[in-house]
């Protein structure tokens, strides 16, 4: 039974394992997806850490930067290098490459959130098992939602330099705006548009107003549906000039 199941998903398992291996070898990315937030939380350790709300900003940063590098940038690099096309014909499935990449991000995000939480509980403030469990469970949806919000960028056609500037700017702006702690209409607007804000709001949803809860729920469903529709349509050829 187990062997039969393995044979059925032989290619899927192989492509997942190789992508996980590639992701774990890219150690440089962990400097700013994991070590940087650990460093920042250490610098801010004297600030108010009485509730988990302070933690969610770091979780949001970890999730979005990991998906940004591991999913968005990785798929774009793969496609623009021409290797995406070669790989698709070798493994016979474009969707499997994309899906396994997202699964890899789920694993990496879980590992990073776990390590981050362990660091916080050892050196800053004790985190309850409930917090660990909450981080584990919510991060699945947070990772998928974060990837879904970025899918549209895979369809942008422009010059390579302009594209690099665009996504670099969106990334920096996204972090900067998260740090603003927006309120009112601005908070709603940024929740819809800024992945960092959206993921933060998702983590803190149990403390949000009914309107914000409704907005987060609707946007989550909408983004996941759009991504599910768009992702299989991604071209295997270059988009950037």
């Amino acid at each position, binding site marked *: 039974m187990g062997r039969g199941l393995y*044979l059925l998903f*032989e*290619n899927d*398992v*192989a492509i997942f*394992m*190789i992508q996980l*291996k*590639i992701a774990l*070898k*890219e150690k440089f990315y962990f400097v700013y997806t994991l070590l940087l937030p650990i460093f920042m939380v250490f610098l801010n350790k004297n600030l108010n850490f009485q509730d988990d709300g302070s933690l969610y900003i770091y979780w949001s940063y970890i999730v979005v930067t990991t998906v940004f590098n591991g999913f968005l940038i990785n798929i774009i*690099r*793969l496609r623009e*290098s*021409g*290797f995406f*096309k*070669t790989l698709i*014909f*070798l*493994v*016979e499935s474009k969707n499997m490459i994309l899906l396994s990449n997202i699964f890899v991000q789920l694993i990496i995000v879980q590992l990073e959130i776990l390590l981050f939480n362990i660091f916080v509980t050892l050196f800053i403030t004790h985190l309850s098992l409930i917090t660990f469990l909450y981080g584990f469970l919510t991060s699945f949806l947070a990772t998928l939602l974060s990837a879904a919000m970025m899918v549209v960028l895979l369809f942008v056609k422009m010059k390579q330099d302009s594209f690099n500037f665009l996504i670099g700017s969106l990334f920096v702006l996204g972090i900067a705006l998260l740090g603003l702690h927006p309120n009112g209409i601005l908070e709603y607007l940024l929740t819809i548009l800024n992945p960092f804000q959206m993921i933060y709001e998702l983590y803190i949803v149990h403390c949000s107003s009914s309107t914000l809860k409704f907005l987060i729920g609707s946007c989550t469903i909408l983004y996941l549906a759009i991504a599910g529709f768009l992702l299989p349509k991604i071209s295997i*050829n270059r988009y950037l000039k």
Partner: protein
Amino acid sequence: MKIENFSYYQKKHVIFHDANFYFEDGKINFILGAKMSGKSIILDQIAAENSNFSGFPKAKEIAYLAQENHFRIGLTVREIIGFIRQLSSARNLALPSTLQRILDIKYCDLVFSDRKILLVYLNLLVDKQLYLFDEPEMGLSLTHSKIIFDWLRTLVAEDKTVILTTNKLDNILETDNVNFIKNAEEILADNYLKIKSRMAF
């Protein structure tokens, strides 16, 4: 396998207009033409999931090596070959001596010629009906391109069909089938000997 009355436009530029290409099963078929003449477009069209050209296998039965593969991967050659060998379509193919000496080198550290040779070998490792190669000898020395073409001819010996693009004449044998892109409308398709006599290369 044939492509008939094929037209392709990029913005207002005509790449092909009512062009015809003919390919023979179980042979090496060259698409010969100058740079930017649209050779890669033909391969893309053959490999497209919604391709409706006559006689070509479905996308799942095609191996396709794109022209450029600059992706930086920290995996070693051994790990990459191991990955392809795990796929359901993998063939039991001996590891050539050319690759044995680089097994423990990371892909991103390989020199261009070794990288190209590895990529061609990875495509030979999978069992397909049709193999597409976009300028496999581009940027390689004659020695290295000869290694690649020797491998491609072993595919033909196994009754596989190979279609490749090139703008060089070095590795074409007189019996090979050639589609020479003369211009957007005129494609000369025949064995190389006859094409040569018509074009006086």
